[in-house]
């Protein structure tokens, strides 16, 4: 939908955005939470989002999580000639796996089958999408244009189909989400670091999740810089909160922050927080807090895992240890959105990008 917060999205926005920058990459992301307690989250990749940069990487990375927090990760790379990407619509094929829009951005078919794991899902849009105004005219090449970074096509979708876990296929229904990220360099390499966030970078951590509370949907990504970044909120530097009532965007702000506490290195060797307090801070639009208590860590990726020994030594000595997590949590939301009180409690999960040291 078009209003002052976001321009109209078109099928071309979800197509491949051709780019000649060596470190550029795109991914098509989806997730879903099913009524039977299973969760899936995954990406179809064109180029590598993790260092070292590799524009020829074509792969899928799709995780299935059981209600108990068990994980099945499907990470499979295919040769370039077994993959195809349309520059007109979302039509992404990576080996036998695909993600395709059906007609327009209201409906998608996502298919993955690798060994004993698989999914065959249809996404029907319930709540629309978002792109930062001024970014990314449809499918324009870049440079010289600024990569759009983040385009959301389905903030909330009805998902139906099947999930295959260890060879056992089950019918599923649930709530899903689909977005598309486009970047000019692998995560962690912008701003100067060799494989990690560089000096002055405000993004020591970024937490991303959604809140579903009745008719309200809030899609948020927030964090706070480290001490070296002056503990700034991520507002204006990547953080963003988009609030919907029904299918209408009613508030967008960059003013807010998320701070982790009660940290541990349990299970990972890399520090992560057991509690995250999210503060929305734009009076009149969206204000209040989300308290998140982590109950399960369902994903951990060590961004130094492909680094050689002395690169790791240097990075850990001078920068910290970047990593990627997904945490399930219990939440308590106490918000006011455009003056209306929104209270909710429940269970959900978040993505956590840890770029450097500290919280």
């Amino acid at each position, binding site marked *: 939908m078009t209003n002052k917060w976001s321009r109209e999205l078109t099928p071309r926005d979800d197509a491949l955005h051709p780019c000649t920058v060596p470190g550029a990459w795109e991914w098509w992301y989806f997730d879903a939470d099913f009524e039977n307690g299973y969760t899936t989250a995954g990406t179809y990749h064109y180029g590598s989002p993790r260092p070292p940069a590799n524009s020829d990487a074509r792969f899928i990375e799709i995780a299935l999580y059981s209600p108990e927090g068990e994980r099945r990760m499907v990470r499979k790379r295919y040769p370039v000639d077994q993959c195809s990407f349309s520059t007109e619509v979302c039509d992404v094929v990576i080996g036998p796996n695909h993600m395709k829009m059906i007609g327009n951005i209201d409906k998608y078919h996502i298919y993955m089958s690798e060994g004993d794991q698989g999914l065959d899902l249809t996404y029907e849009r319930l709540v629309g999408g978002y792109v930062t105004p001024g970014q990314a005219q449809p499918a324009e090449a870049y440079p010289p244009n600024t990569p759009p970074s983040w385009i959301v096509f389905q903030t909330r979708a009805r998902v139906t189909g099947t999930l295959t876990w260890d060879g056992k296929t089950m019918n599923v229904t649930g709530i899903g989400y689909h977005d598309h990220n486009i970047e000019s360099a692998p995560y962690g390499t912008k*701003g*100067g*670091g*060799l494989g990690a966030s*560089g*000096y*002055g970078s405000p993004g020591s951590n970024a937490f991303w999740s959604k809140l579903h509370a009745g008719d309200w949907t809030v899609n948020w990504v927030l964090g706070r810089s480290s*001490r*070296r970044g002056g503990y700034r909120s991520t507002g204006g530097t990547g953080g963003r909160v988009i609030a919907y009532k029904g299918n209408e965007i009613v508030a967008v702000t960059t003013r807010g922050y998320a701070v982790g506490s009660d940290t541990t290195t349990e299970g990972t060797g890399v520090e992560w927080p057991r509690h995250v307090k999210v503060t929305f801070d734009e009076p009149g639009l969206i204000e209040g807090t989300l308290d998140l208590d982590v109950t399960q860590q369902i994903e951990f990726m060590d961004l130094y895992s492909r680094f*050689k*020994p*002395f*690169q790791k*030594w*240097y990075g850990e*000595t*001078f*920068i910290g240890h970047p990593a990627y997590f997904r945490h399930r949590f219990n939440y308590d939301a106490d918000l006011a959105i455009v003056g209306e009180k929104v209270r909710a409690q429940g269970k959900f999960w978040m993505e956590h990008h840890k770029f450097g040291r500290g919280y």
Partner: protein
Amino acid sequence: MATAQVSERMAEQIGVLICEAREHLADALEEYLKSKKVDIGVINVNDKLNIERLFTETVNSYIIAEIAAMVSYLIYDELKNDDILKSTVPTMLQQYESMFERIPDNMVNKTSDLPDLAKRVLESETEKDEIVKFLLRDIGTMSRGNYLKASFDAAVLNFLGE
């Protein structure tokens, strides 16, 4: 990598080092003030001497060898002269370190794992350039009094993609 890109990357890395060093300095200063257990009030001559020592130890622990490695790598990348990395700059670092009254704890801690790390990499079966083998052997035989040189070698190995 083109020289301009190497230069740009090194320039960015200087910022990384300075940020890390300034945090260590601020932490060391905080510890020092806490250890006095009184409101600092006026900074006297002894305090100034101690703060200057903290500054010196921070610069020696986190900046000198690494900046030397960046500049040396930049020149090495342009001239392809191994002596820059093998002897010219390391000799200067050794001479500088020999003037230290004491070796900072941070410098010892930072480099303590490097000899074992170097031995493991050296014994691995991956193919290595001659200069990489030299630097690994150099760290592997590191003795007390060569902390700056070990840091230099390790930083250069990082820039060489090791």
